[in-house]
């Protein structure tokens, strides 16, 4: 080919996909190009920004590098695609007029208040001084208020507020930050705060705000209408208030998240690495689990070593946090129900429960419930615990494209679904446990909402194999082709999909419960995955448990089953009943669940014998291991064994409880034993990987499943496998727990022929 290699000049065509329109992206590119000494043009084409860039190698590298890293506020770059093209000459770098192509449906998630708006909020001379709904073209609510595309004033729930003259002028003036800002508003014309007090009496605007602040400062609980729904808030350092809040939530036991006014304040209470600081400040303003330095009362986060900390994401929160200091900020609902978005529902709740003293709200409607997203840094990876506000509805861009529109139903717990078309997988937000009928209906409503918003009509449905999942039963109401994917296969496929892995992968899926192809409950799985194919290479040895769903909560019950399995005498009150149930096969099932093993070990160490919320026991066991590491204690040496049954690799737990019993009798500390248990798991995973590498030459490892939220386990295994020359991948874009399996399901369905 005859490239006209004019001196050392190279040409690139670059496509930037994401939220890149209506956020000042093109001027940003122009600035960047000029700084990097790049010539060419930038233009919008159908939802994508197209750049033609010419420059020398060094300039081009610099330009592309910065394009990948930097963005104007409000923009969200999903992918930067580049290819070298034939040399063209440009004298400058300019903006080309955009064509009239159809908008590709990408909708921005809700955006946090930008720096400039925050300055204006605090500027006495600004006309939006202290206005709690200040926003601009790069900030403010988006997905939570959009009815349909295009993103226009008439299609968002701001349309009930006609703009005042001044706002109108800004809106139509190309020179302002609010030109075509659909959320534009001011004290004159926009939404305003309303206070609904103990007896239903109302105040508005400044008075409303002051009422709320005074109730909060007097240790009361206030429901506050935020971006993705209502929050309950109270002072984080007031024990009585937090106790009341637990009562109000329905005897909630889970740790509460705390909102701080800034990172400096967070650093008083938590250790914050630079990656964690970046995450806290990122646009979604997620809750980040951070290692505690100093604690509030036990009422706030219980025995957790972490505080779920986050920063204000809207002007009202900015103001409240400045006035009230750290606030417990938790979704307004009874535990198990979806976050409340309707004003009437909160009012009804206040009627019923006087612990809720007041409501600070406004009349701008929220269209879809969005919980705060929750993440945790493990090693240098950001791991999703919950993916919702700030991330949804940004698609995950997949290497593999699907011509058909696929609907993936996900799992029943931490339910979320996925719509997959072309290279985009749109994941819904987290909804909760489908056993709750309100969760179920939120799930269904939002399925319809997303299908409409993105103009997607599924032709293929894919779901789990569990016969009693609500998500499965629902899917059977449709006439579409139905594909069923094994739970742990979906977990591993979600990692493969988001990293675009090719070839054979050894998946390690560790979680609590997933229905297996043999009718047993799986959860400690080693799967060989390639394209849509899967083969179970190994698993944690089966054990018989009784108690049905109770076994997922009752760690003592599970421990007893393990003891019986090992023939260890137990003097527990319930052991004879459990033994009888096992003998009688009453509500019993076989399981290779890793989650249950953690529960049993936790109960064995007498740390806690019941999960008052999901993952509590496993978390407490992890805490001990972390403390052992921090205090540089020696792990108590423990081991699991590997055997082969018809080629299947069986990781046997037999003998483990005798080892723990012995260690306790010898007076070893629980921290040492807990750490020893973690190391034993790491060691056995490593052994399995090496066997598989030796036998079939696999070096790609994918980790998924809720058990990998465990920092000690995951950091250690990743380090260990990396050292051994494996390439290790883990979920970084979708939740590692069941909230992410819809992506795996969708991806696999896309690979499957009719």
């Amino acid at each position: 080919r005859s490239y006209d290699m004019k001196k050392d000049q190279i040409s690139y065509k670059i496509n930037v996909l994401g939220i890149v329109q209506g956020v000042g992206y093109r001027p940003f590119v122009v600035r960047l190009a000029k700084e990097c000494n790049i010539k060419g043009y930038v233009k919008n084409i159908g939802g994508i920004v197209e750049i033609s860039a010419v420059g020398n190698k060094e300039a081009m590298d610099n330009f592309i590098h910065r394009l990948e890293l930097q963005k104007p506020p409000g923009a969200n770059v999903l992918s930067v695609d580049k290819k070298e093209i034939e040399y063209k000459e440009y004298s400058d770098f300019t903006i080309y007029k955009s064509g009239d192509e159809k908008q590709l449906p990408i909708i921005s998630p809700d955006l946090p208040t930008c720096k400039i708006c925050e300055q204006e909020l605090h500027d006495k001379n600004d006309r939006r001084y202290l206005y709690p709904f200040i926003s601009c073209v790069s900030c403010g609510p988006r997905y939570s208020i959009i009815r349909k595309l295009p993103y226009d004033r008439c299609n968002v729930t701001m349309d009930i507020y006609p703009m005042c003259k001044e706002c109108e002028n800004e809106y139509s003036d190309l020179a302002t930050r609010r030109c075509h800002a659909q959320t534009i508003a001011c004290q004159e014309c926009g939404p305003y705060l309303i206070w609904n007090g103990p007896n239903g009496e109302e105040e508005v605007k400044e008075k409303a705000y002051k009422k709320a602040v005074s109730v909060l400062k007097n240790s009361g609980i206030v429901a506050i209408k935020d971006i993705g729904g209502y929050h309950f808030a109270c002072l984080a350092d007031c024990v009585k208030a937090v106790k009341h809040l637990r009562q109000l939530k329905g005897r909630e036991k889970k740790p509460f998240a705390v909102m701080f006014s800034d990172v400096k304040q967070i650093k008083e209470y938590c250790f914050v690495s630079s990656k964690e600081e970046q995450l806290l400040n990122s646009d979604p303003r997620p809750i980040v689990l951070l290692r505690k330095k100093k604690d509030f009362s036990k009422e706030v986060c219980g025995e957790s070593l972490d505080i779920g900390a986050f920063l204000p994401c809207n002007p009202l929160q900015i103001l409240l946090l400045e006035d009230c200091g750290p606030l417990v900020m938790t979704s307004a609902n009874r535990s198990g129900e979806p976050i409340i978005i309707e004003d009437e529902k909160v009012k009804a709740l206040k009627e019923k429960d006087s612990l809720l003293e007041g409501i600070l709200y406004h009349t701008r409607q929220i269209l879809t419930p969005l919980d705060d997203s929750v993440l945790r840094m493990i090693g240098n990876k950001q791991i999703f615990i919950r993916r919702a506000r700030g991330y949804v509805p940004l698609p995950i861009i997949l290497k593999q494209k699907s011509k058909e529109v696929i609907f993936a139903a996900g799992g029943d717990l931490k339910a979320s679904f996925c719509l997959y078309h072309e290279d985009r997988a749109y994941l819904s937000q987290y909804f909760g446990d489908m056993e709750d009928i309100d969760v179920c209906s939120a799930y269904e409503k939002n399925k319809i909402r997303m299908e409409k918003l993105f103009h997607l009509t599924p032709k293929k449905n894919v779901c789990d194999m569990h016969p009693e999942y609500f998500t499965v039963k629902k899917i059977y109401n449709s006439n579409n082709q139905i594909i069923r994917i094994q739970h742990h296969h979906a977990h591993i496929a979600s990692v493969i999909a988001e990293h675009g892995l090719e070839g054979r992968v050894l998946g390690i899926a560790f979680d609590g419960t997933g229905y297996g192809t043999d009718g047993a409950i799986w959860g400690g799985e080693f799967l060989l995955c390639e394209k849509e194919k899967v083969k179970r290479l190994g698993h944690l040895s089966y054990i018989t448990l009784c108690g049905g769903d109770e076994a997922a909560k009752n760690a003592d019950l599970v421990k007893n089953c393990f003891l019986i399995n090992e023939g260890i005498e137990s003097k527990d009150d319930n052991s004879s009943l459990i033994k009888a149930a096992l003998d009688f096969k009453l509500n019993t099932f076989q399981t290779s669940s890793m989650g249950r093993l953690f529960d049993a070990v936790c109960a064995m160490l007498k740390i806690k014998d019941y999960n008052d919320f999901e993952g509590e026991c496993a978390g407490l066991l992890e805490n001990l291991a972390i403390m052992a590491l921090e205090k540089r204690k020696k792990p108590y040496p423990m081991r699991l064994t590997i055997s082969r049954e018809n080629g299947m690799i069986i990781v046997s737990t037999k003998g483990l409880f005798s080892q723990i019993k012995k260690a306790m009798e010898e007076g070893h500390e629980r921290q040492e034993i807990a750490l020893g248990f973690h190391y034993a798991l790491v060691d056995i995973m490593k052994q399995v990987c090496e066997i598989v590498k030796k036998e079939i030459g696999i070096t790609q490892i994918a980790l998924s499943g809720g058990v990998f939220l465990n920092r000690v386990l995951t950091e250690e295994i990743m380090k260990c496998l990396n050292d051994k020359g494996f390439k290790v991948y883990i979920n970084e874009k979708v939740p590692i727990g069941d909230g992410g399996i819809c992506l795996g399901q969708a991806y696999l369905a896309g690979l499957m022929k009719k």
Partner: protein
Amino acid sequence: MKITMAHGSGGKATSELIQEVFAKEFENEILNRMEDSALVKGSQKLAMTTDSFVVTPIVFPGGDIGHLSICGTVNDLLMSGARPQYLTCGFIIEEGTEIDTLKQIAKSMAKTAKAAGIMIVAGDTKVIEGNGGIYINTAGVGFVDETIDISSSNCENGDIVILSGNLGDHHATILSSRLSIENTIKSDCAPLNDMVENLLENKIRIKAMRDVTRGGLGTVLNEFATASSCTIELQEEKIPVSDQVKSFCKILGLDPFYMANEGKMVAVVSKEDSEKALELIRNSKYGENAAIIGSVTQEEAGMVFVNTLIGGKRKIDILYGEGLPRIC
């Protein structure tokens, strides 16, 4: 002495067995005639039902298979608003059964029949090979007033759901026996004549009524919800379950909503009647723990859910099978 195949021959041993075990206990003018069929009086709308009883163990805390076989059929008659009148019973007895056990069962049948005001008018006995098991079939006839219209399809928006007492006692008793677990849980097995008569006599307009047996409350209410195209909304904190049964069930992963009872009924009545109905049931025999547990709402058709203690709304589906864990 034990039952042998000879007791089923139809000859002398059979008639001796019948005389000694059953006739003595079940004696009444109709049965005494020992005809091929019983001739009974009747002029009204009739309710008829039949049920077979195969429980193990045959004697359990709070009752035995005999007691159960009368209660089951009597309660089925009562639930359609009938006054139980006549009952037939067929015994299938495995060889090896202790005749003393048989006597005990016959005695308790007679006692329960008397208490329930039903007359045992015909019977049959067969002996089969086996290992000491007893199976009883009973069929019952009752009279119903023409005006009575009780049906699972009668539930309407706003109606109130009343449960006559604690859930799960029978199921927990049988399981405890089978698992050889010692506790003081007793079966609730009882005839509910008193309760139903009190409601009917006091002109409570009962819309739907069922005894809560196999399949449990969840199954019964789902049948109501489907037949009436309504939603039934329950309050978890109002559902009566004894503490002992509660902790027994919990660890075994059993849900009281799906556990069998043998002396419990659920009634759907209009809101106006509900307080009075509750009062009447509470003042009736076996009704002291009765409670209003929920109501009929029209939100979504054909569904039952419970507002849980912690504030969620759990769907009570029909029972699919032994519960596989779903929780991750």
